[in-house]
């Protein structure tokens, strides 16, 4: 019953809109030294849709600028960090929006990706908006525990849980 209800809700609120992800800020965990940070830097730079990467070695933080008009695969960022031997503790990304209506606890299809918005008031997004990914593999175990219950959990499709 719950599934049917979710599917119905999903069908009603899914809207497909074009919006470009411009950049992302990533904080990696599990490292201190610059050699480790450099490994992450090199593997992020090697991703096909990444234009450039700036790193803040002290805080294991990376600002990633994406190529325009290329599809940004957020999961590929996480895989690059894990491949380097570390984890993602936080990922926020900036997206260009244009009259995008979003509601709390609702699914929105943007540029071929499905997002589930949590912890927000219903609003219309315009211009550059920064979103935070709440999924398990993009957060430290401690942070994930805090938001876990609020997340959309349907394994059928890749849904990115986000908050503003």
């Amino acid at each position, binding site marked *: 019953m719950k599934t049917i209800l979710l599917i119905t809700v999903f069908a009603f609120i899914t809207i497909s809109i074009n919006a470009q992800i411009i950049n992302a800020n990533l904080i990696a965990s599990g*490292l201190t030294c610059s*050699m480790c940070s450099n490994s992450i830097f090199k593997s992020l730079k*090697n991703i096909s849709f990444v234009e450039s990467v700036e790193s803040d070695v002290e805080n294991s933080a990376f600002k990633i600028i994406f190529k325009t008009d290329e599809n940004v695969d957020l999961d590929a960022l996480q895989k690059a960090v894990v*491949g*380097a*031997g570390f984890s993602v503790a936080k990922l926020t990304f900036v997206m260009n929006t244009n009259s995008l209506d979003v509601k709390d606890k609702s699914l929105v299809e943007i540029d071929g990706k499905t997002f589930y918005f949590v912890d927000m008031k219903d609003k219309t997004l315009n211009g550059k908006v920064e979103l935070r990914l709440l999924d398990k593999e993009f957060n*430290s175990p401690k942070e994930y525990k805090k938001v876990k219950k609020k997340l959309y959990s349907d394994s059928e499709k890749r849904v990115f849980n986000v908050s503003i």
Partner: protein
Amino acid sequence: MYLFKQMKNILLFICMMLVAKSNAQELYVYTEPASNIPAHLLSTRIMTSLYKKKVGSGTNIHFMPEIRYGISGNLMVQTQAFISTRNESLFAEGGSIYSQYKFLNRDEIKRHFRMALFGRASFNRSDIHQEEIETVGHNTGYELGVIATQLLHKVAISSMLSYERALDNGSQNEFPKTQDNSATNYSLSFGKLMLPKKYVSYDQTNFNLMCEFLGQRLNGSGKSFLDIAPAIQFILKSRTRIDVGYRHELYSTMLRSAPNGLLVRFEYNFYNVLTKK
């Protein structure tokens, strides 16, 4: 040798300082941490060791060139060659293959706890001249073990436990029947990042201090040894590594040919090898 003595004193002092503070980072000189090298990283190393002979005079010099590759973030492979100056001229004694698999990874900001399994298979054709079993550069054989590593900001602590088995060194040098052919190895390693105090770029030289305790117990007779091995390490431009360490026997109840000596290693890393962009 005067140089050995001086070096030993300095490094022992470093070691005491480290332990007193209770703790390099985890790129240990004498052991591997549970953290693997990154996926698609090709790491090249050349290690030279100079060990003072216990019986008679002279120094045993070994060269060990090495290549490591990260197949994935969890699996790495390594191959190493053993060359020595045993017969006055350079002598290719053998080589080994090594693989390490990280099976546990718990990351937090500037912290981690990791565990890994490793295995090594070695071939060596030199003569067997000691009771100590060492598949890195002395014995044909294999080693299987487990490693646990904890990183706490600038300090890393790691421990290893392994089973090592020696076989005949080719058909020319059979393993002596009177000697124990298997051993249990254990280690406890401390490392601390000393410099830079604060990171601003990848070009800053990193300076690490390490202190490791390396032990072995022969499974049959119970004969054992314990060594202390302090080391200093420089990391240049976040991709070149230089290690200098001194290994010193604290006690031993078994015959060892040359337990005390100096180690120098040079490492250079190539990133994103064998990947498509």
